[in-house]
């Protein structure tokens, strides 16, 4: 009975979303405040209903109610409690429900926090959000209903895919969806601006925090997913340029560009049309990502059994929303007023360059991801586009972008002095040069490109610190005033510096782990000792062990360095009993910022086992940098200007009404 209530709530939510799709738009046309206010009520009702439905599904997982087909397919009574909980979204139906839940959550946040929004804009934004909600609720109810019943109820479930039985599942999808779906807000704002035909700096001020929040979550989500794949798949790789990874990476690239162009629009009222287009494209890429992941049209290492019928449904949603929004854009963009002018050498100019490189890079990733699909449907030949393609196209586009990053924040708005900025960056450039020489000196045979890559990371880090120091008046004021000024800097300045700092850390991690890592594959028996990167690993043989829903063979390695014991690494081969599915649990030991990574292979007849040992140089920098970027996003969200948002109530009479905030 209670399961049917969940299903029923979802149907009611669809009705509420339909109401929310239509009524506020009529309200805007008739300038009827009452009808426009309906949007807020309907949004809250949709949220309550979807949340109720989601709780019911969660409850059926927690109580292992195998009369629900979805629970039977993806759960097991012996599964640890945390995986019963996270297992709710560890399957297609549940993850789509989570997708919609987060979507309506964002709508509700706009409805709740948007009291200062002009009522017409708010009503239109919420209506556009409701269109998306309606489409996806229809999708769930028609093709992916999680509440289907089985009669008679089976006694035991089929268990969750063992790869997903990991704390990563509890964190990664919700974070990723917060990012993906969060971009729907910028999309809705863009479409609303096109419908109402009005857009100004206040609009950008409204959109930027939402974009920033989505970007922050997506950054953390992608990094989390990368680390999860790294330790769970047992191949020692952290990024495969796999279609599913690209699906999350493209919205990130476009979202990063949007973040920067919205800045220009907010401060200088320029790049209006471009920002609108970028907002539409970013969410379109999120939808494309959902389609690629959910339809299984592309072969991916991360994909699960999928259903082509659903793919066609999502493709229709994709076509309607992307096609519709772009058509609207084509019709209305010309009516929007053009913004201010600026010289090519200026903060705006640097941000335009940033956008140029980021969007071009997004386009190359998109090409590499979709090319196999297009080629197969046109000529029938099957190809795979892998890491070599992306390294060759994406890499060269990123290098110039990374080189110019430190210049951007130091250039003045409107008209900058490139020479003066270069002089201020002498110290950062010097540090980068010293690093490059140091890398070449200390590592024999390191490629010049590696030295350049590490130096690039140092350049970014030193550049972001230079920016902060100069803003606080370093060298011009006494140390105590400098400190006081530094603390008093706007949080957005810290956010920018942290994000660029984190980017530098990630770059160093990527370069160093690619170039300086070592790998060793060998066959071992108990008592053998191998050496990797200066560490000795003594293999203690395989011991059986039993977990709650699996059995495993553990391989223990005693690690010593220069005769001193450091600790143990345990790597295992597991067999999940319900699905008879084996997995490899990598053993990882972190030393400083580097890691020793051990995974086990097949057992031979003579009691030996294949062992693969990696020394991963500086690899934790990759994720550490992403975490710093996300922290930068959070810090920037706490900025006073974004929290207050005071200027919104005023009708902006013109650019003069927006004095440039002190930076």
């Amino acid at each position: 009975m209670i399961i049917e209530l969940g299903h029923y709530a979802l149907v009611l939510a669809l009705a509420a979303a339909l109401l929310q799709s239509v009524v506020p738009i009529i309200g805007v046309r008739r300038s009827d405040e009452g009808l426009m206010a309906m949007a807020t009520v309907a949004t809250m009702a949709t949220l309550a209903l979807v949340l109720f439905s989601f709780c019911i599904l969660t409850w059926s997982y927690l109580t292992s109610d195998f009369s629900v087909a979805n629970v039977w397919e993806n759960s097991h009574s012996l599964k640890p409690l945390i995986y019963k909980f996270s297992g709710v979204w560890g399957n297609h139906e549940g993850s789509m429900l989570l997708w919609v839940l987060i979507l309506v959550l964002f709508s509700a946040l706009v409805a709740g926090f948007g009291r200062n929004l002009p009522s017409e804009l708010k009503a239109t934004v919420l209506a556009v959000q409701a269109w998306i909600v309606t489409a996806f609720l229809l999708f769930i109810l028609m093709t992916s209903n999680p509440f289907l019943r089985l009669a008679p109820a089976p006694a035991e479930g089929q268990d969750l895919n063992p790869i997903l039985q990991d704390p990563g599942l509890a964190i990664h999808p919700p974070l990723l969806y917060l990012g993906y779906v969060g971009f729907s807000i910028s999309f809705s704002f863009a479409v609303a601006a096109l419908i109402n035909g009005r857009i100004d700096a206040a609009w950008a001020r409204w959109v930027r925090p939402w974009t920033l929040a989505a970007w922050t979550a997506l950054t953390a989500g992608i990094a989390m997913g990368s680390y999860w794949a790294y330790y769970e798949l047992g191949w020692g790789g952290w990024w495969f340029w796999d279609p599913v990874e690209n699906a999350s990476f493209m919205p990130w690239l476009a979202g990063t560009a949007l973040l920067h162009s919205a800045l220009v629009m907010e401060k200088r009222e320029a790049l209006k049309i471009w920002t609108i287009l970028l907002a539409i494209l970013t969410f379109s890429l999120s939808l494309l990502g959902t389609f690629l992941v959910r339809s299984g049209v592309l072969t991916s290492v991360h994909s699960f059994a999928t259903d082509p019928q659903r793919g066609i449904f999502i493709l229709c949603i994709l076509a309607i929303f992307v096609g519709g929004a772009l058509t609207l854009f084509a019709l209305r963009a010309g009516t929007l007023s053009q913004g201010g002018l600026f010289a090519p050498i200026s903060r705006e100019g640097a941000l335009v360059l940033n956008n140029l490189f980021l969007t071009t890079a997004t386009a190359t990733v998109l090409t590499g991801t979709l090319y196999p699909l297009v080629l197969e449907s046109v000529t029938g030949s099957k190809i795979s586009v892998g890491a070599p393609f992306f390294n060759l196209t994406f890499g060269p586009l990123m290098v110039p972008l990374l080189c110019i990053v430190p210049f951007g924040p130091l250039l003045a708005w409107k008209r900058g002095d490139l020479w003066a900025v270069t002089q201020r960056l002498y110290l950062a450039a010097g540090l980068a040069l010293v690093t490059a020489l140091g890398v070449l000196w200390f590592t024999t045979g390191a490629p010049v490109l590696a030295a350049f890559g590490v130096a690039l990371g140092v350049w970014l880090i030193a550049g972001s610190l230079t920016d902060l120091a100069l803003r606080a008046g370093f060298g011009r004021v006494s140390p105590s005033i400098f400190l006081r000024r530094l603390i008093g800097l706007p949080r957005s300045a810290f956010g920018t510096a942290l994000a660029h700092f984190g980017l530098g850390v990630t770059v160093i991690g990527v370069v160093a782990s690619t170039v300086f890592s070592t790998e060793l594959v060998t066959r071992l028996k108990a008592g053998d000792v191998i050496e990797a990167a200066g560490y000795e690993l003594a293999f203690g043989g395989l011991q059986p062990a039993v977990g709650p829903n699996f059995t495993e063979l553990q391989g223990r390695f005693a690690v010593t360095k220069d005769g001193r014991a450091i600790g143990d690494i345990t790597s295992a081969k597991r067999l999940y009993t319900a699905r008879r599915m084996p997995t490899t649990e990598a053993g990882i030991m972190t030393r400083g910022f580097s890691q020793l990574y051990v995974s086990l292979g097949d057992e031979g007849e003579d009691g030996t086992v294949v062992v693969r040992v990696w020394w991963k140089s500086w690899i934790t920098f990759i994720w550490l940098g992403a975490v710093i970027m996300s922290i930068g996003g959070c810090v920037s969200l706490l900025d006073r200007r974004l929290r207050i948002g005071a200027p919104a109530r005023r009708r902006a009479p013109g650019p003069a009404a927006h004095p440039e905030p002190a930076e």
Partner: protein
Amino acid sequence: MTRKQKRLSLIAGGLGVIGLAVLLVMFALSSQIAYFQSPTDIAEGAAPPNQRIRLGGLVVDGSVTRGEGAEVSFGVTDTANTVEVVYNGILPDLFREGQGVVVEGIFEAGNPVFRADSVLAKHDETYMPKEVADSLKEQGVWQGN
């Protein structure tokens, strides 16, 4: 600079970056992609030496033999033809005889044995790689959808 010059410099810069990207993509697509081939395609001589290809099919029952160290060799078949594959490394967890597999690597000149540098693993044991399913359908072995 005049307004016109500013606009021109912006357009020139934009076209420059996009042109660079297009050149890179064209070059990479001509040299850095791997074609998928079935054992029958290879028997018909479709694989030039030293070019990266993806080979897919079923692992032949009883063909997996361990060599020196971590080296392993096995046959990949589409039931009409079979190709010998050598691989040095750890096989994925779901690698089994009689199951579908996709390997990536090259034929060295004058050597009929395929040298694989990666063996594709899937997250899910019920999943058949799409390319393999298609090529088996051509041979009339695969019945599913």
